[in-house]
């Protein structure tokens, strides 16, 4: 008489056919380091982009005010307000997309 409980348990404890090759560890390490390099490059790019944007905006503001004779007309300030508002909104959006979302995902 066969012990079917034992046969089923032996089958459930049997190793799967799927085995990872000897070079698997090296492949994963290479992949991780490659992704790190790419994300580091992206990070540096964003830093440089941010610096250029800040310096560029500063220069723009200086040039704008240099040409402005006086603050008599409020309408002249409207384009500057739009520019500053857009920049702030852009920075907020990038902060949310690149920093906060990532942080929340990691915390989840």
């Amino acid at each position, binding site marked *: 008489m*066969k012990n*079917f*409980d*034992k*046969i*089923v*348990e*032996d*089958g*459930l*404890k*049997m*190793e*799967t*056919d*799927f*085995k*990872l*090759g000897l070079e*698997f*560890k*090296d*492949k*994963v*390490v290479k*992949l*991780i*380091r490659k*992704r790190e390099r790419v994300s580091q490059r992206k990070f540096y790019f964003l830093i440089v982009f941010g610096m250029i944007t800040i310096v560029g905006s500063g220069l723009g503001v200086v040039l704008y005010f240099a040409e402005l004779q006086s603050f008599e007309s409020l309408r002249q300030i409207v384009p500057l307000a739009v520019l500053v508002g857009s920049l702030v909104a852009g920075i907020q959006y990038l902060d949310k997309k690149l920093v906060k979302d990532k942080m929340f995902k*990691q*915390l989840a």
Partner: protein
Amino acid sequence: MDEKQLVASVLSGDDGALRILIGKYERLVAHMVGRVVSDGMDREELCQDVFVKIYEKLSTFHFDSKLSTWIATIAYRMAVNFAKKKRLNQVDFDSVEFQIPDSARSYEDEDLSRFVVKLVDQLPTSYKMVLTLFYLDGFSYPEIVEITGMPEGTVKNYLHRAKSKLKVIIEEHARKEVELV
């Protein structure tokens, strides 16, 4: 090197430690992925992705649980998501129609055990995972609850139902073989 030292070394950028970590847990990850995905290329790629995710999230692991449980949780979620995305084994347990392979036409115990493996492959993903975690990787009920997020009653129910069903099929199969002889 204990696990805390290993994790610290991996986080400090030590490639050797990372290789040790992968070597230590590749069997566990391969079990989880291998049970769900049948295509060889997809399997290896998914295993790679699991280890990349483990590495990325390692700094958030604070030894609140065993490292193996935490790694199994990541592997489980990624394997289940992959199965959902590719619509693999999305069947209800009661509606599984088991395909009986010809190679099992033997009543040697070892062949019947191999036959069990083939039957397990046809079960719904959640059942396969629970069976693998319990029998192949030796996780306890509370650990399986932590890994899968299922209530303990469900885990026990899955194990019991799957085992009973497999036993019935094996018994029927062996009886038919005896009748044929």
